[in-house]
């Protein structure tokens, strides 16, 4: 236990505790709009954390993570609507489906030596394949969409994930914290060190006796399973699923932006990135509203320019330099080269 908890100073503990307390107390101060924004931030922090396992830890660039979100969403929603199985009971099935799908992609790619850009495009291909497939999958509504029954809930039903935004907020917060802790332990365990060895130099890792195929498979499967949980949340929070939206490459890019902007391979990067990007998008909406600009696309242009500036000016993302500024860079697991 001390091995896993070592390297974190008192000051870092205090800071993390302060952030967590702020998030726990937020619903008492936030109105419904702000709460929704916070849910979005946590959602992207969670999915970013899951994606980061593949890219940040093991160095495998996936551009198709919307696939796992979609599978998780459709699996839990279909079990709920068609068989009345609650989301938490259906979740293991959803995770298994996503993991199996990740395993198939990983097995095919790593066995045949598909790597780098080719692997990234293979993941896009599978996500697009699923998008068009679900468009023609009548049992879950096809391209007309799949809907969960909506009603006004007086009380929050945690078991069936039906209720008010506050409940969804705490569920997402719990998931994000759990993902953070899981990633911390993974990074400090044997599996994490093997991943980092593969990320830095796969040939060298293999020479040292690391079974690179097996560890890359672990990365895909764990990442896919974690991402599918976000899919369940998505389905029950929005209550509607359209293949064009859920599986679109735009969704995959949204998942990826957070950790890259925040800092690939760091534990706090996905959270910081999700916060910065969501806050940026929302404040741009407000600015446009104040200025009275009602032309579609203006907001996205500014968003694109901001993205461009961050990636040009901060090659390692926001977190590493921020970490330095806060005097936290003694923490060894937040170091990442190349």
């Amino acid at each position, binding site marked *: 236990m001390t091995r896993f908890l070592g390297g974190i100073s008192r000051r870092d503990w205090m800071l993390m505790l302060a952030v967590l307390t702020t998030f726990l107390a937020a619903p008492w101060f936030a109105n419904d709009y702000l709460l929704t924004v916070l849910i979005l931030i946590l959602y992207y922090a969670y999915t970013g954390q899951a994606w980061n396992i593949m*890219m940040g830890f093991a160095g495998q*660039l996936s*551009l198709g993570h919307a696939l796992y979100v979609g599978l998780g969403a459709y699996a839990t929603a279909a079990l709920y609507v068609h068989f009345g199985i609650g989301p938490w009971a259906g979740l293991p099935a959803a995770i298994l489906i996503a993991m199996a799908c990740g395993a198939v992609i990983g097995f*095919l*790619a790593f066995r*045949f*030596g*598909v790597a*780098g*850009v*080719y692997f*990234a*495009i*293979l993941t*896009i*291909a*599978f996500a*697009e*394949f699923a998008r*068009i*497939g679900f*468009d*023609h999958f009548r049992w879950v509504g096809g*391209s007309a969409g799949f809907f969960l029954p909506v009603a006004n809930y007086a009380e929050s039903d945690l078991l069936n994930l039906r209720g008010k935004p506050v409940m969804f907020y705490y569920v997402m917060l719990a998931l994000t914290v759990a993902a953070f802790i899981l990633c911390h332990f993974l990074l400090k365990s044997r599996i994490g060190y093997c991943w980092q060895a593969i990320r830095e130099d796969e040939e060298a890792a293999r020479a040292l006796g690391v079974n690179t195929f097996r560890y890359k498979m672990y990365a895909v499967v764990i990442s896919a399973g974690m991402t599918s949980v976000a899919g369940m949340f998505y389905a029950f929070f929005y209550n509607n699923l359209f293949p064009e939206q859920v599986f679109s*490459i*735009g969704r995959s*890019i949204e998942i*990826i*932006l957070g950790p*890259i*902007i925040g800092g*690939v391979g760091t534990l706090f990067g996905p959270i910081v990135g999700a916060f910065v990007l969501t806050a940026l998008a929302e404040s741009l909406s407000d600015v446009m509203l104040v200025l009275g600009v009602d*032309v*579609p*696309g*203006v907001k*996205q*242009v500014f*968003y*694109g*320019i901001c*993205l*461009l500036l961050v*990636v*040009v000016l901060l*090659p390692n993302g926001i977190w590493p330099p921020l970490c330095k500024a806060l005097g936290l860079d003694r923490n060894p697991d937040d170091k990442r080269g*190349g």
Partner: protein
Amino acid sequence: MPAEIYLNVAISGLLTGLVYGLMALGLSVIFGVVRVVNFAHGEMMTIAMYLAVFLFAAFKLDPLLMLVPISMALFALGYAMQAGLINPFINRPEHSQFILLVAVAIIMVNVLLIVYGPDAKSVQTTYSFDSFQIGPFIVDATKAYAGAAAIAVALALFAFFRFSRIGKAIRACADCYTGALVVGLDVKRLYALTFGIGAACVGAAGSIMVILVDVTPPLGPAYTLLAFVIVIVGGLGSMPGALLGGVLIGLTEALAGLFFTPSAKSMFAFGILVLVLLFRPQGIVGKKQT
């Protein structure tokens, strides 16, 4: 259904596929030399298409005649992008380059959305509804012209890389980066030229494509994906491979649209992509990387 229908559909798919191939050729040239995957490729294609629509609407200029000026405009855009933005990213990791080009793509799509709005724009030429009867086959005039123009541009490009000094220098950069530096080539400038040439290719493809399909801003990301599929099927970095891949995907889409539903046609394209990636990752024509 009589057999002629299948053949007619196949011919029309093949001709459209040649234009796809020309678009993918641009992507392939850029990746083969600069080793950067242009994630804004389809967006550049839509820029060219909107330029052609604008020139047609304002001055009644035929898109096929505007092919050269539009290609030159896109060349300038590509050159500026590589020289200003991408050159500093050459040695950065792939995900960094990816985000850079995604940001560029987001800006391009939405600027087009602001300028032209979300409605589909099209060009009605005098020959839009003409067709040729060759034996039992009927070929749309637009598709025949489009295919011929695509082949002409591709041949010009092959000749450029084969015979011109700059073309040879660019191939030297692609073969060996360090070697090119050693013999005194200005690699950064050649990269910018390459990106410009790739963009010019897209410009030509866009001004041809506009006589076949209507253009909307969201077409950009769709074409980016299509270009990826084609170059990987043909062989990333291989020029004949890109054309071949384009024809193959064009054929597949046309026949899948006929046999199944048109909305499922890209599923078959992605299916072919998955098969190629698994069994022949270097593509149909591509050489195995060492």
